[in-house]
Each structure stands twice: as structure tokens, then as C-alpha cells.
């Protein structure tokens, strides 16, 4: 027991030191200002992180979407083997009922904003999707399972998801048809700083936003259906 405690103390100190050192000694950026200018010129995206993962590294991002889709199917597949809860008891609290709707609206508006300006400021499709999914989750805590089914049309959601995945794949192949490389931008770059700029980056942001929103919502729905609300 004493040895175990000693081991815990030593490993804590090591982890603590490593964390602090890595947090205080962040390597300074080696990318020159010209490099930033080049990225912005080429993509017209002010957020260079988005420019990287939706333009230069779009191939990796597509696989991230595949992994996400696979994990959702995994959750749905395994939860379907669990019998669903017969007596579904939602939260029945007036304060919660009111604020959940409020939170839902706020999170959907915030999510759309984050998705649309992903190429101008911090944000993007993934975060926006999760924010919207969380909003849907909060509002569904106060509703009955049949009400949720009626309002969010869960059967349609899985078809939307497949449709979005298909359109993402088609959008990456489409440039080949018009004589460009695959995964290459085919839309006009527009004026820097506008929402409708940066070529296909906002389009992908929007598609990823919808995909992640429906995906995270499916996970929530199946959890509530098969395990019940807390």
C-alpha cells in the first residue's frame, strides 16, 4: 500500500512538471508572416486553421467525418440491442421546461453563427454541430419520447445524415468533372472577410455542421430511448 502511494505521488509530480513545462514553453511560431499572407491569398479564409483542415488537408477531414459516422452507427447498433425503456419519465419542472427551450434557441442560433463564420473567426462545422446537438439534447430532456419522435422526425434524420455524407463525397470528386484536381476548390474565392468567400470552405463547414448536429442528436436520442433520462 505504501509503495502504491509513493508511486502515485511520484507519477503525479512527473505529470505536473510535464504539464507545466509544456504549457509555459510553447514553441514560438516558425511560420513567417508571408506564409500567413500566402494562405489567406490562396484560400481567402481569415482563419488559417480552417483553411488548413478544409482546404489543404480536406482529405484528412473527410476521413474524420467517416470515423464520426462509423461511431454513430456503432452507438445506434449496440443500443438497438438493448430493450427500450417502457416508462419514459422526462423532467417535469416548469423552470427546466422554460429554460430548456430558451437554451435550445440560443444554442441553435450560436451554432449557425459559428458554422457560417468558421472561415473568418474561431469556429467551424464540428464545434457548431456539437453546440446544436447539445441544445437539442437539453430540450429533449423535458419531452416525452413520442413527442421527441414527432418533433424531430428521427426517421428522417438518419436519411439526412446519409444524404449529407454522400454530398460531402460528391463535392470532393466534383472538381474532377470540371477539369480540376479532386479535393480542389471549385467555387469563386470572393472578397476576403465576407461570409460568402473562401470558396467551398463555408459549404463544407455547413455540411459538417449538419452532419455533426444530426449525428450527436442521434446518439442522444438512442441513449434516451434505451436508457431513459437521468
Amino acid at each position: 500500500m505504501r509503495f502504491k502511494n509513493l508511486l502515485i505521488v511520484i507519477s503525479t509530480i512527473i505529470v505536473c512538471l510535464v504539464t507545466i513545462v509544456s504549457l509555459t514553453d510553447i514553441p514560438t511560431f516558425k511560420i513567417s508572416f508571408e506564409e500567413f499572407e500566402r494562405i489567406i491569398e490562396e484560400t481567402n479564409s481569415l482563419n488559417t486553421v480552417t483553411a488548413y483542415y478544409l482546404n489543404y488537408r480536406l482529405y484528412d477531414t473527410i476521413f474524420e467525418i467517416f470515423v464520426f459516422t462509423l461511431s454513430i452507427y456503432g452507438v445506434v447498433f449496440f443500443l438497438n440491442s438493448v430493450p427500450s425503456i417502457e416508462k419514459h419519465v422526462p423532467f417535469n419542472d416548469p423552470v427546466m421546461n422554460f429554460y430548456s427551450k430558451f437554451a435550445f434557441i440560443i444554442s441553435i442560433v450560436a451554432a449557425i453563427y459559428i458554422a457560417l463564420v468558421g472561415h473568418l473567426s474561431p469556429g467551424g462545422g464540428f464545434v457548431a454541430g456539437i453546440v446544436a446537438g447539445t441544445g437539442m439534447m437539453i430540450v429533449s430532456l423535458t419531452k416525452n419520447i413520442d413527442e421527441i419522435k414527432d418533433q424531430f422526425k428521427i426517421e428522417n434524420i438518419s436519411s439526412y445524415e446519409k444524404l449529407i455524407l454522400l454530398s460531402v463525397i460528391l463535392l470532393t470528386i466534383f472538381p474532377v468533372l470540371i477539369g480540376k484536381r479532386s479535393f480542389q476548390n471549385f467555387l469563386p474565392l470572393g472578397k476576403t472577410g465576407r461570409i460568402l468567400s473562401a470558396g467551398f470552405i463555408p459549404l463544407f463547414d455547413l455540411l459538417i455542421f449538419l452532419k455533426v448536429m444530426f449525428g450527436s442528436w442521434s446518439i442522444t436520442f438512442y441513449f434516451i430511448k434505451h436508457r431513459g433520462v437521468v
Partner: protein
Amino acid sequence: MFLEISLGIILVVLALIVVLQNKPLKAIILSGAFSASAAITYFFIGAPDVAMAEASIGAVFTTFVYIVALKHSGKLRVGYIDQAGLIKRGAHGYEGVEYELLKLFSEDRAMSLEMKKIDSFDSIEKLENFDIICGGMVESTFSGKLRDFMLIPYLETNIFKTKKGEKLDLVRIKNLVLSGQISPQDIDQNTKEFTKYVFLISKESEDVGKALTDFLQNLDKKIFNDIVRRNLG
């Protein structure tokens, strides 16, 4: 510099607290707090995109999924019938073989026990609100009668017939004789049947049943015998 160091310390301390928790619910909520501080850290070291993702996924979404997943396993609802030696609320809290076994099991699974006394088995619907029902349940009495329950045997016993024709198990006979409700002469010594005491597990809590079976199989024989000797003599 000071901010980074303090954030680093907070992260490590929170992570340690989460790992050392033995109550799953507390651990989940604290890991949500950990995610929130991680998000703040990401923000200050120049990664607002990652901070947003961490805050929404780590602090809210994962916490919810974990809590729902924990729903059935966080609290063990036990319904019991008073039976001295097996389970009974005494002056110093609960005591008995079944209670001690359940306590060890709940500690092993980091759950809390919620005890409720049952007066009779007349209304089976009420029994569905429990994960485990105990209090000297005997295997042969319940086979077929309560089909909605899973039976987990843990201790062998004998069944005796009284002269009135009642079939009673060893602990019940002992308690009745000790309280003077029947005399030892009333018991028919020849009709001895072997059976086992069981825990009744509701079908909805099948996972609890599986975990309890595993626990009882892997329980140290010495500890088990000690519990039985201490309570039943």
C-alpha cells in the same frame, strides 16, 4: 506565465481528484469540470477553436452521455423482508449475511444502497421498483412463482415441514423457535429438503444480476464463511 502554471496545476489536481473518486457520479461531474478548465487552458494558449470543441464536447455532451449510461448502475435499490441473521435493521444500522454481502458488492461496484422494507409479496407490481429483493428468499419457493425475477443463489439451507404443514427454511425456523412462536417439537425432522437462499433480481436490472453473480463467484471463501459464521453461528 503565472496563468499557465496555475492552469497546469489545476488540470493535474483535477485529473487526480477524478481518478481517485470511488463514486462514479462524482467522477463524471468532476471530469466535466476538468474539461472546462482544459477549455480555458486551450483558449489562453492560443487555440480558441479547440477550446470551443472541448467545452461543448467534454464539459456538456460527454457528461450527459456518461450520466445516462450510469443511470441504472449508480444506485442499488434493495427491497427486503426483515429476517434476523440474514437482513434486519438493528440498533446499529443494518446487519445480517445478505446485507453484508450486498454492502461488499455495492462498495465493489462503487454504488450506494437504497434500502426499503417490504411487508409482503402480495403486490408484485410494487416489487418492480427494486433491483434486488432479499430477506431469506428460498430457491424452491420462488421457482415459477415470480417469473419476472432472476434468482441468484448464494447459500445452502434446509427446508423443514412443521406439523401445521408449513414449509419453512432453517433461518425462519430458528427465528420462530427463538421468539417462542413455535416449539422445536412442532418441526417434522424427517422432511428435510435441500435448497438455497437466493437474491431476487428484477429482469430490468439484468446487468446488476450478472455483476452480482460474478461478484459472489469471485468472493474470497474465507470472507464469505466469516460473514456467515458471524451472523448465523
